[in-house]
């Protein structure tokens, strides 16, 4: 099978490519150039930097596969960077990696892969995708919900694709992949998802891959200095740069330099020592229209419900409330909840116990054990 591997130059996607090549697939490495390297701008972080492209090329040479750099600067700006900036300005906390996966890697890159005759796109994500062959009855029953890309695709018509957590729980990235459709999952391959990270590194060393000991990438790849506030202000110079901290009753308790500089649940960097009673203050909510940052005690961060939009169901859209474990950010322990599909693309989640810092802009992903049932973007 001809498979395009999205190669960042990191150890995970490098091993993904090496594994597929070893299995005898016709592997093509593609690296995405996501910003202009010519003008000597400060380079992006480890995932898409010029060093990353260089490392990807070296790995491709080492495992003897063709490798190309494709230029997706425009698409990256449109699909990922603009959204990132706009979300912060709108008082939300964006999740760029999920947009990059759903809207770039498994969309634009997948289209490009198809143009090279590739049947699938592989990445170095720690997640698993499994094909469930449906029996005739099931096929008829589920036929409504399963809508693979091509009408002519008999393979996926009779198959349901199941997205699961990677077996290395500490590295699991299924949270960032919830928006993949059945058609996208049908063509997705995650070669390292069924291995622990340590085994991935060991394999890289055994194969003498030149990136075997490269550190894991951290943070947001396009903001290498981690100064997301400065990045937002540079991309959107019109961003308001002054506002007020208010308490839960609306009383002004201080001044700040713009709503985009805060995220729900944030405690550090508020420039407010504590409440009059001496308990630490947290960001409870952001009101961009008024440029207000609402602060209060940690107990006020607790909520039991959330509303999600652009919900992507990987099972048939449930007609009755379902029980699920719902994860509300990357490092959150999925918590038991009841999920209701309220309208097409909409859902509400009611947790059994209150959760800390339900943050608009992040994803709420619904799990049954290790299986992703679906997920959406937190609105409130």
């Amino acid at each position, binding site marked *: 099978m001809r498979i395009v591997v999205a190669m960042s130059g990191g150890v995970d996607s490098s091993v993904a490519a090496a594994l597929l090549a070893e299995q005898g697939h016709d592997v093509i490495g593609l690296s995405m150039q996501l910003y*202009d390297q010519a003008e000597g701008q400060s380079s992006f972080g480890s995932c898409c930097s010029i060093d990353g492209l260089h490392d990807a090329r070296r790995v491709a040479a080492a495992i003897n596969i063709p490798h*190309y750099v*494709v*230029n997706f600067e425009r698409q990256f700006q449109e699909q990922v960077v603009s959204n990132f900036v706009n979300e912060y300005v709108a008082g939300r906390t964006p999740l760029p990696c999920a947009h990059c996966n759903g809207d770039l890697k498994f969309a634009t890159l997948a*289209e490009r892969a198809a*143009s*090279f*005759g590739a049947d699938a796109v592989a990445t170095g994500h720690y997640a698993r995708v499994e094909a469930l062959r449906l029996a005739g009855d099931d096929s008829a029953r589920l036929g409504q919900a399963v809508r693979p890309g091509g009408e002519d695709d008999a393979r996926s018509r009779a198959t349901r694709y199941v997205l699961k957590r990677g077996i290395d729980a500490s590295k699991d990235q299924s949270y960032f992949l919830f928006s993949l459709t059945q058609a996208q999952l049908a063509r997705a391959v995650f070669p390292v998802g069924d291995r622990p990270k340590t085994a991935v590194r060991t394999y890289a060393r055994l194969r003498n891959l030149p990136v075997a000991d490269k550190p894991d990438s951290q943070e947001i790849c396009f903001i290498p200095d981690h100064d997301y506030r400065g990045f937002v202000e540079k991309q959107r110079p019109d961003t308001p740069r002054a506002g007020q901290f208010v308490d839960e009753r609306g009383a002004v308790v201080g001044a700040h330099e713009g709503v985009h500089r805060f995220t729900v649940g944030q405690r550090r960097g508020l420039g407010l020592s504590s409440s009059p009673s001496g308990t630490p203050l947290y960001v409870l909510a952001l009101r961009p229209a008024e440029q207000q940052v609402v602060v209060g005690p940690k107990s006020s961060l607790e909520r039991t419900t959330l509303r999600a939009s652009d919900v992507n169901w990987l099972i048939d859209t449930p007609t009755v409330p379902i029980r699920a474990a719902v994860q509300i950010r990357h490092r959150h322990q999925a918590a038991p909840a009841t999920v209701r599909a309220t309208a097409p693309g909409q859902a509400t989640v009611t947790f059994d116990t209150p959760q800390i810092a339900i943050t608009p802009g992040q994803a709420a992903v619904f799990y049954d054990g290790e299986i992703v049932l679906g997920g959406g973007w937190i609105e409130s």
Partner: protein
Amino acid sequence: MRVYFDYNATTPLAPDVIEAVARASGETFGNASSIHHFGQQAKAVLDDARSELATLIHGDPSEIVFTGGGTEADNMAIRGAAEAIEPTGRRHLIASPIEHEAVLNTLKALARRGWRTTLLPVDESGIVAPDRLREALQDDTALVSIMHANNEIGTIQPIAELAQLAHARGALLHTDAVQSVGKIPVDVRALGADLLSLSAHKFNGPKGAGALWIKRGTRMLPILTGGKHERNRRAGTENVPAIAGLGVAARLAGGKLGAEAARVAALRDRLEEGILRGVPGTAVNGTRGSRVPNTSNISFDRVEAESLLIALDLEGIAVSTGSACSSGTLEPSHVLRAMGLPTHRTQNSLRFSLGLFSTDAEVDRVVEVLPRLVEKLRNLSRKVS
């Protein structure tokens, strides 16, 4: 079978060239500036190469300065002449917008240091009209730099005419002949140029060797300072093996210029006809008249050049979009843009460039494969949009 149609990026070495490079790397390893036997042997290798190259371009061996390649030769010509002329009060430079980056970015660098620069318009076939130069020349124009043949479209400029105009106003004329030397007859006297750049690896010589021909009497300052190499014009121990290869490549090119050019032109024309006939929505960029015999630049309607290039490579066919130096950028070709082509055509064009080892079978293969690939890409993009 692998097809290599990217000779304007670089060429495979002729077997005799490989042998010469190996010999000069082994037996004649000496430093050409040394007085002893080893130095003398290396010096002899340089002398031979200088003679061979002088013969190829109808210059005098004493007028040739070996460089580390075409880019260095272009830099030396423009910076070296500009610096020598500056005290006379001339502070203006002219070039065309379709020059190689080695020229364009050197002009930009000088502009940051206070030089005025003018880029002449080119017509839709990529040719500089002499009248445009006549209008642009000023009393303090120091140098005019116009390439002999363009790397992307192969168009040949009327250098002799341009040189006359430059000289009439007391300006020097430099021509970047990297893409013409070895492909077509180049006679520095007939061209009337003062400075001419060339590069060995564009005519089956090794990389890292080039030359600047400097007409006798032209005032130049060295851009690399150091020892007294190359008659004080280019400091640094000479790259004897690569220059040996350059010499042999020059001899081989000169020996079969006419016949080989005709052979390659016939292949190129057959390839071009095959593509234009076999693939709907294609057009030749530039002119089919005055151009080097090995180059064809073709636009493919509704196809992204980057995708077609990769699809071709996966079929074992190597071509390029514009120049090799600009790969990895989304910038549309500055050459096609300067010719006034609409944006979509500047981003859907491929360059096919043939050479010494190109065969009929390679042409057949490309003509056979292309229609299928183009149709596939067009169908996909239709589906997506």
